[in-house]
């Protein structure tokens, strides 16, 4: 039962990450021709941020769907979710809550979704990934995984 839940989590995480990566790539392509802003945290052009985030999400999503090692999946999801949320907190800390609209507006515009909604969809996704990966680690299968790695 727990194993099924873990598998379901991996599958759903993979699907969400692939969907998110696709949306980010589509947003990036749709934004070609406009002069993009520079990310206020990393100081690089937003399309580059998008390409990096999209590529990472796609890679992690594919690992979640097709990967064989659960430990790798846990680790990657946890790392990605933590990094994204930390990035969002950093962005919020630097320029405020509404900064998302200014920097990530391409994705919202490409799908005709209000930036607020886009922000909350992405935040909800990464919170789900964070909580899911933490819970999975703490559950018995995770203990099994720890034993496997020791043995």
């Amino acid at each position, binding site marked *: 039962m727990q194993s099924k839940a873990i*598998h*379901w989590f*991996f*599958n*759903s995480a*993979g*699907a*969400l990450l*692939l*969907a998110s990566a*696709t*949306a980010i790539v*589509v947003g990036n392509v*749709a934004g070609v*021709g*406009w*002069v993009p*802003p*520079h990310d*206020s945290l990393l100081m690089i052009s937003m399309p580059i941020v998008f390409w990096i985030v999209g590529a990472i999400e796609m890679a992690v*999503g594919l690992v*979640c*769907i*097709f990967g*064989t090692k659960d430990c790798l999946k846990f680790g990657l999801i946890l790392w990605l979710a933590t990094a994204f949320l930390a990035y969002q907190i950093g962005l919020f800390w630097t*320029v*405020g809550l*509404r*900064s*998302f*609209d*200014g*920097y990530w*507006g391409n994705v*919202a*515009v*490409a*799908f*005709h979704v209000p*930036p607020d909604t886009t922000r909350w969809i992405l935040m909800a996704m990464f919170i789900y990934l964070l909580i899911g990966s933490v819970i999975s680690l703490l559950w018995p299968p995770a203990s099994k995984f720890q034993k496997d790695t020791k043995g």
Partner: protein
Amino acid sequence: MISPLKQMASNRTGLCLAAVSVLFVVGWRLYIIAGEPAHWLAIASELGSVGHSEYSPHNIFPSPDNTCLLYERETETGIGTFFYGVASDRSKFLFEQKEVGYSEWRSRVLGWARDSSLVACAVPANLGPGMPSEEIVLYNGAYGDVVGRVPAGEYAGYSQFTWLSPQSFAYSSHRQTLAVVKQQPDGQWAQSHFYEQPIAGPKWQGLKAYSPESVVWQEGRAIWKFEFDSASSTKIWDSPTNKLESFACADDGNLRLHCSDKKGQYTILFAPPGKSADPKGTILSNVRDHNPGRRARLSMDGGLYTFTIERGTNSEPTRFVWEGMVENYKLVGDELYFTGNRASGLPGIWQYDINLKTVRCLVPGPEEDLKYATVVTPSLGICTNAREKEISYHLWQPINFSPGKKYPIIIGQTHYTWSSFPQIAANDGYYFATVDRATWANDINNWPEDVLGLYETLVKHTNIDTNRVFFYTFSAEALDTAQVLNVKPGICKGAILIVPGAVPIWSSEQLSKVFIAGGLDDDLIRPKVYTNYLSEAAKVGITLRLILQPGVQHLPNSLATERQRAQQFARFLLEN
């Protein structure tokens, strides 16, 4: 042991979920694209290719005998000058100045010879940017063929030019030196004299031929004469009390001086020394004159352009109302030439016969090039601005208008001349409304109150989506947009700022979408201003759509620039 490939294939649930999620996202995007108006890019391209940007000069230079004219029009890569023969009804390309490195003075129509046999133009011999290398090219007045080329190394931005006779002309340098060019017996044109010492002070203006061997000009309240033989300048008229506005040389050698004092304007007919027996010259007549000669004036009455043409006689001025837009106009003899368009058409060149009171199109706009775009005729309205002053406005209604539907609107206050932006907006399902300005400078300071007044008038319209109101500004019009938002915060979803003179920082509660088009070679608004604004706007949550075009200055000077701007504007409209 299960191979990794088999394990991958065994996770059918994961595969299905991944496929469904990716297809969902792609499908969503395709759904958005499918919902976009058909041929929106082609429409924007067609309308953007009309050229005749609202603020580009597009001068016209009719010949004195009204048989032909030179006109400027945007080409794909710059501003072209064309010859048009009235009899042949054909246009001929003469020369082009490229947009990259464009300088208004480098290619210029200098003037027609008085007998219309020749027209002189300054043309950059070195077509690229950098050190100027000019030549004066002479074109045949009948067919527009080149009949002479004269290197004009001294020609510069402040140069003045005048024909001395059909066989000679003079031009000055920026140091007030003078070059005289004459046609040689073998038919070639060559510089005959060059006066290295400045012949005038730096504030001279209105260089005119007095005779084939002398020129006159104005310096302050005085008129000076320079004779080629003696190479000396002499003051021939000075008035310490009254202001000399302008002057003209009459055919009989007298000077017609247009002056003004506290009582108003008057005209002095003056016989200069040499013409008069008196060594100081003689005043032949002094007439209080509110009608200083032949001239045409353009005004806007109730939202319609009206020409008032005075012919220097005691007859009543002729009034000509044009139901459309006007960019530029010239009066020559009994013909009025102007560039502009009928309200339902594209810009062309028109001729109004003052005696017959008929108007005809000489050079039509590119109507036949429009395959997808619809030219929308604006409706005229009258309302009051925020200070209760009556103003006129024009409203472009979306094509395929449906009475039960709400449409977004773009509001501005701008010079009422052709622009592709209202047409693109109407073709893409937007209303576009502008308070009329008869000229660029006219009432530009009333921008906030005029736009507020128009907004209050239009929001009562049941078909206007008040949640999707956008401001439109060009250049200096952007300076006062923040005033409107301070008075009425939250009325506006976004702004469309074309080469804005200012980029005020708004909060995203006031507006969330901004479109800015600018040029990377703009000397007035440096690109750094826009990129800084881009960062600031992003921080407050404004989605800023910025287009910075390489090689483009403050005003667009090619069809390619206009078209790209039009396409990006259309994209912005679709996104919102």
